[in-house]
């Protein structure tokens, strides 16, 4: 019987060893690990172009902005990531404040207009997207359109507006409200939203619900609508866009960031990747990808289908001040999370 | 084949002493039954002999070879004992032939000859060779289990209550066939059982165990007729214990004056009386037979007639078994209850008055 017990121990140990050796961590010199909070298709296209140009392979780990940002902070020096790419800037700020980034090469910073670069110079914006109010053509008339995103907390919108509260996109929009209106006004606004809003898993689901008339309106980013229009229009046929403009927090233009991690084992290659994302070639890949996000490079023209950024009249917000954790806390207090 | 000698073997499980210095010799080629109630340690003894565990002390010898002793413990697989557990424990995933051949070397396993021989030896049809255990009756399974144990030609066969799970009709035939097979091969065998009929009828030698000790070893007749103590006496057969006063070779008690063997304890004693020793006498003249008159017994009168006409008693209950019957009686003199085993014809009725006497010598024990 003792020998059978021993056999168990040997087998279990062997299984563990096999498991350990089978688990190559992926960093074998030429492969970068990219923590990707951006859309997988877009980043796949961009890094494929990068690999084609440089021969450096890139593996993507997907997740949400705050998820991956917090993950990088908790991983600290042990983080397997080399580059972090987000949809919105609060996540970049979170990592930057925790000292998670390496200063970017000057050449990279020079490629990007100043409004997309934080004061620290530790990350850059490489794409931008605008907040938009979408509504079902048959359910909301032109007269009923809200003038400000703040109006959505009013009783007339009860049960009529959809948001993807758990998503980073909406949380970035909340961070803009926080930056423009302050904490008290934001808390009041969130409490109103808690009463009014129907919660969706993400922007696509919200748009689909608006299209089907399940909810009259929603707050999302612009490109979901443009992408669907470009493809089949199946989920946006009945949906109209309404940009708030007038420097309303609802006209917020969110910046997608890219940065090189302090914990990176391949900083040179990682710097090259971020440089590529903001380069003319990279930005052109972005525009041609069908993602329909805004490019940030001045040298690359915006996709003609989109309303030019200049016409959106967004509020002036320093990209490095948006406070993600505070937003999560406020949303928890409002029971939206 | 070889003799088995167990000397001073002891075994504890935690705080419970399962065996206390057991000595037992099983002569070469004999069948010895270890008889005892549940929990007396007999299965433990058998498992230690088989090598499934080590005693805390003592020695175990197979003939001249010491298999267990200080600094030595031969593992079970090298002791060459055949083991027949309760309910056979055939390997359920292989057929009868493969079960029988299980302990044989690979080459011998392939040939069907040995399996055939052994099936024949245990009295089974060779056609069963390719059946699976669940397709056999309980008795057949037990015989296959023996065949499997005998196949590697063991020096000793150990049987652990092998027949207890069989129903009465099968038990006798199977037991007989198994012991015949053992005797035919001249195999030394140790049979553990709690059934005294099985032990007495099958074995050459019976070892009665009680509370972790061997209480008595001997031929079946000796153990039955001259048990070492009341516990053994009660365990090997039905018994009544009657208070008596012994003087030389005569014991005076409620059943009259009985003969005890020379050397019996003197003075106050308990007499062992077996049911078959009690005889019912034909009704004496003048005694009212069936009317159930109330007691008017003159004690002196009965005393006087004891030697010739037995003592008086009343039938309480009669149990009829066909080949014989038992009669429960209450003695007139003291109200003591005794049981008589009588032949099945001409039985008294409950309530009848009878006279009874005791045949042959009885055993006397010191008073409890």
């Amino acid at each position, binding site marked *: 019987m003792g020998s059978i017990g021993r056999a168990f121990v040997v087998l279990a140990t062997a299984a563990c060893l096999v498991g350990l050796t089978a688990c190559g961590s992926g960093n074998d010199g030429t492969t970068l690990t990219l923590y990707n909070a951006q859309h997988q298709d877009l980043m796949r296209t961009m890094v494929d172009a990068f690999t084609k140009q440089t021969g450096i392979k890139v593996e993507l780990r997907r997740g949400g902005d705050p998820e991956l940002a917090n993950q990088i902070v908790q991983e600290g020096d042990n983080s397997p990531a080399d580059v972090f790419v987000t949809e919105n800037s609060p996540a970049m700020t979170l990592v930057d404040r925790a000292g998670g980034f390496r200063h970017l090469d000057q050449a990279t910073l020079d490629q990007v207009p100043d409004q997309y670069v934080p004061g620290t110079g530790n990350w850059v914006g490489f794409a931008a997207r605008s907040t938009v109010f979408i509504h079902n053509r048959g359910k909301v008339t032109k007269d009923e359109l809200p003038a400000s995103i703040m109006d959505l907390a009013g009783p007339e919108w009860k049960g009529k507006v959809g948001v993807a509260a758990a998503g980073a996109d909406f949380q970035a929009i909340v961070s803009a409200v926080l930056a423009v209106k302050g904490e008290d006004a934001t808390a009041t606004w969130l409490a109103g939203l808690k009463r009014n809003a129907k919660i969706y898993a993400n922007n696509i689901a919200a748009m689909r619900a608006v299209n089907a008339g399940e909810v009259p309106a929603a707050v999302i980013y612009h490109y979901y609508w443009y992408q669907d229009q470009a493809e089949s229009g199946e989920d946006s046929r009945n949906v109209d866009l309404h940009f708030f403009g007038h420097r309303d927090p609802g006209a917020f233009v969110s910046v997608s960031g890219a940065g090189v991690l302090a914990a990176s084992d391949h900083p040179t290659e990682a710097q090259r990747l971020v440089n590529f994302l903001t380069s003319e070639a990279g930005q052109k890949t972005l525009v041609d990808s069908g993602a329909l996000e805004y490019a940030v490079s001045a040298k690359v023209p915006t996709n003609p289908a989109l309303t030019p950024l200049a016409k959106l009249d967004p509020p002036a917000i320093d990209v490095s001040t948006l406070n993600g954790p505070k937003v999560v806390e406020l949303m928890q207090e409002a*029971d939206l999370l | 084949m070889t003799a088995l000698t167990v000397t001073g073997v002891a075994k504890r499980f935690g705080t419970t002493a399962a065996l206390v210095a057991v000595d037992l010799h099983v002569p070469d080629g004999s069948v010895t039954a270890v008889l005892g109630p549940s929990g007396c340690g007999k299965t433990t003894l058998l498992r230690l002999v088989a090598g499934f565990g080590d005693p805390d002390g003592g020695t175990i010898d197979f003939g001249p070879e010491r298999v267990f002793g200080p600094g030595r413990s031969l593992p079970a697989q090298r002791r060459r004992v055949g083991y027949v557990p309760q309910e056979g424990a055939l390997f359920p995933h292989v057929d009868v032939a493969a079960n029988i051949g299980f302990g044989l070397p690979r080459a011998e396993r392939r040939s069907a000859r040995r399996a055939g021989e052994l099936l024949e030896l245990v009295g089974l049809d060779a056609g069963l060779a390719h059946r699976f255990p669940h397709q056999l009756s309980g008795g057949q399974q037990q015989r296959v289990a023996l065949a499997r144990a005998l196949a590697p030609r063991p020096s000793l066969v150990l049987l652990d209550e092998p027949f207890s799970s069989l129903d009465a009709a099968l038990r006798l035939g199977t037991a007989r066939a198994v012991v015949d097979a053992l005797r035919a091969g001249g195999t030394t065998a140790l049979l553990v059982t709690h059934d005294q009929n099985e032990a007495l009828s099958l074995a050459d030698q019976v070892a009665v165990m009680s509370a972790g000790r061997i209480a008595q070893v001997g031929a079946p007749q000796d153990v039955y007729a001259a048990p070492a103590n009341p516990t053994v006496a009660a365990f090997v057969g039905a018994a009544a214990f009657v208070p008596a006063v012994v003087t030389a070779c005569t014991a005076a008690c409620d059943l009259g004056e009985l003969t005890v063997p020379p050397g019996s304890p003197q003075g106050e004693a308990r007499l062992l009386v077996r049911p078959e020793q009690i005889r019912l006498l034909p009704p004496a003249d003048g005694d009212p037979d069936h009317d159930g008159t109330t007691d008017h017994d003159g004690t002196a009168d009965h005393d006087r007639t004891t030697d010739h006409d037995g003592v008086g008693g009343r039938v309480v209950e009669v149990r009829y078994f066909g080949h014989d019957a038992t009669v429960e009686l209450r003695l007139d003199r003291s109200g003591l209850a005794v049981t008589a085993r009588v032949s099945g014809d001409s039985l008294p009725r409950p309530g009848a008055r009878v006279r009874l006497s005791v045949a042959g010598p009885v055993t006397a024990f010191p008073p409890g």
Partner: protein
Amino acid sequence: MRRAGSRPGYPRPLLLACVLVALLAAVPLFFVIGYTISTGWTEARRLLIRPRVGELLVNTTELVIGGMAASAVLGTAAAWLVERTDLPGRRVWHVLLAAPLALPAFVVSYGWVSLTSAVEGYRGALLIVTLAYYPLVYLPVGATLRGLDPALEESARSLGLGPWRTFARVVLPQLRPAVLGGSLLVGLHLLAEFGALQMLRFPTFTTAIYDQYLSSFNSPAANMLAVVLVLYCGVLVVTELGLRGRHRYARLGSGASRTAQPARLGWFAAPALAGLGAVVVLALGVPLVNLVRWLVVGASTAFPAADLATATATAAGLGLAGALCAVLLALPVAWLAVRHPGRIGMLIERSTFTANALPGIVVALALVTVSLEIVPAVYQTTTLLIVAYAIMFLPRATVAVRNAIAQAPPVLDDVAHSLGIRPVQAWRRVTLPLIAPGVGAGAILVFLAVVTELTATLLLSPTGTETLATEFWSNVRDVDYGAAAPYAGLMVLLSAPATFLLTRSARRGS
């Protein structure tokens, strides 16, 4: 007295192995407890005593109670119709009614949500989880019905009871352990369910924990919700353990040799057929037809054969590794429990069951932190993912292996040794062939669970590792139903044969 089964004392290496397994299985629980203590009362209070938690508690309770009750009624009624009545086509019905077991709940949910958003919210969620999980009641109740002694029903009939009253007064009480046991299993699955409910927009603790995780990775907020979830599961597990203890006494023999005279349905046959037909259409027909529809749609746009092949291979590989690992860990525990019954064996066996009260998301959260802070070498590795699977599915492996080992009583080892066979050979020639089928069944169970596992895989899988479930999920999240279809289809194809084997062996075993 007779120590035929158990050897005195415990073999050291075996005991050591068991203690290690028990400690590993308890890592998530230790983590949850430790985290709670370190978070402190003030912070815990801020995160727990708030309306959102109340809302989740109400939602979760409504769903668990509703789902358990609906599954119990549906599963029992279906089992009775199939096993005990003269319903036409009973064999076919049995296969059809057990088949939803091969459809993961999130695939059923997907089949419905992609058809109509009317199933969102409580009623839809209740409908869909019931359709997905009622086989967990149907199968044990069916097995019990097959094993019941028909003489009991015959006695009741002879005492003048009609078929309905016989069922209510004689059969139903005997089914109680199976019905309650199955329902509690449904309850535990519902507490851990993530994908299906997220799609149906019905937030429960598990989906809320995931949302918190998305918002702040491994935060106190997520972990405090996990504590509540663990407590909730704990209540169900303790109830289930208590019931299982009594269940053993409630079982009668190994089954009847005769089959009962089936109850005559008469005029009721038509509505019964219609009812079962409706269940099969709703649970199997709608999701499968819709899946096929999306497959056609998806195939017309893009059919990423390479990604599909990779995800399938990854899922199958992880499934095999997880099954192997879980079974290897279960072996010493089950061996100790069967061969050395006693307080230590029972304690260790019980401790491995704590995973039953730990939904995948809790195990994953715990392992993320533990690996980051204690063993960074395994962080984001396949090893850690497999360890998570092993911990999560250890209970089902242990139950299967335990039953398997009970098929090989130690007396057979003794006989083999007495026949001159050495222990290793005896293990190979006797024990292994006897326990192999049961161990294999345990491995299949774990494999099935791993192939469709979502939450732990999302949190723990190494960068670049995508399984069928995660690929499916990422497409569903983007509401790309066509692209999700092939992954769902492959998951069903992978689970179907194994499920079929299991239900068939369950039927034959009775």
